[in-house]
């Protein structure tokens, strides 16, 4: 599992991602958030490595007008 030494992306790439997301983070906030992002990136990578073939998503759209 991720640790502070494995922060997923470089500081510069992380800054660009945060800007694109419109988060408006300070340098200090960027520095603090990057290790947490590294942990979530590991989670995401674990799931992307699964060969799901034709698997559907767990949530289904409901066309009735009550929902």
């Amino acid at each position: 599992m991720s640790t502070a030494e494995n922060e997923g992306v470089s500081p510069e790439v992380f800054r660009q991602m945060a800007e694109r997301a419109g988060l408006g983070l300070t340098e200090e906030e960027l520095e603090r958030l990057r290790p947490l992002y590294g942990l979530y990136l590991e989670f995401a990578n674990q799931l992307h490595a699964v060969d799901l073939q034709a698997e559907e998503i767990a949530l289904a759209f409901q066309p009735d007008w009550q929902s």
Partner: protein
Amino acid sequence: MPDIVDELHYLTAQEAGDRIRRGELSPVELVQASLDRIEATEDRLHSFITLLKGEALEQARMAEAEISKGDYRGPMHGIPYGLKDLYDTAGIRTTAASKVDFDRVPEEDATVVTRLREAGAVLVGKLVMHEYATGAPDFTSPFQPARNPWNLEHATGGSSSGSGSAVSAGQVMGALGSCTGGSIRGPASLCGIVGLKPTYGRVSRHGVVTLSWSQDHCGPMTRTVWDAAVMLLAIAGRDPKDPTTSAAPVPDYTSSLGEDIKGLRIGVPRHYFFEPNPDINPEVVAVVEKGLGALQELGAILEEVTVPNLEYARAVNAIIMAGESYAFHERNLKTRPNDFGEAVRSRFRIGALLSAGDYVQAQRCRQLVKRGFAEAMAKVDLLVTPTTAYPAPRFEDYDTAFTLRGPSFTAPFNVTGLPAISIPCGFTEAGLPVGMQLVGKPFDEPTALRAAYAYEQHAGWSQLRPPI
């Protein structure tokens, strides 16, 4: 070990309800006992955000008047309870323990609040929680963290922290918690009480502040299994205001309590929940092993099972929660970020940095996890596991990162929506409670409750009281 005691505030809802029904106990007397207990302990516990003393006594007087006229509504009538402060209450501040919603006063009750009122339950107050049902104990928050009645230097677990402390200490007879990764069962386990996360769709989420629409669950936290069953009965069922609720009939959850469990087939997934792991406290595992032994003595048949794809559950839970919580909080995160606590703000912001593909992949992997449990439970009636990997930590040892990094024994059942109940199972050498988790098949709360009740009656842990 603390002595067994018999004080009014420590009656179970079942005992108190019986006395009220027979006219031997006044709801006013009972609610006053609850308020007295709060007054005597709240400065040490910090369970409440809003105390509703006047309103509670007024409701109790109404209950007393109704019952004296023969209009007895059922076992929750006149019973004092608390709400985690993310359940909307009309005209009563509902903060979700955040400065963002510090002054928010809803105009409408959550559906479950309406249902408990209709059942005659008496709302005593709104309970402390981790901000927006995530994060950690935060001493910089305007709402001080709840403390564990078994040892005030220890946390209660979260996020239904005040619900755990208030029920455990006898401040209220029951509470509603909410759960997206373990927030009902975790504090129940760490505070030595019962916590029931029903099947997804069994209980309405309408009027409950969202953390993750597709993983949020509402459920009772009580001192006994019978009380949890009765509280669930009061709140369960289809709600047109929550399209994810099920129209499946709601059974009488108390009807199977007391039936034996001879021949009940219990699956034990040792590969994830029991095997030696530096992140799992061996003392907790040893206590739950004794619990398994007791279930076997009661006639249950234990069988080791393997749950395919279980290794993805943690990531699925985290990625879905990140995406959905960010979507819910995006506007406030961008316009007033400093009104969020640091830990919560960081977690929510992660959702802005993940891709739509990450979220969709998590929702697809969720299907794999669900099928894995269906396969593992094909030949058993229930699964049994420890509820948490550790007992209540000291506040200074609370590791926020560990709550994400370490193993979660509860999150798989938010991912799959399976019903799961935590019941007291014993204590560590240091006197901290340990919980055992029983997991049922979809909408089969009755079997989980039946086994939990049988164990509870056999073991007697629920009669012990914390030293406060």
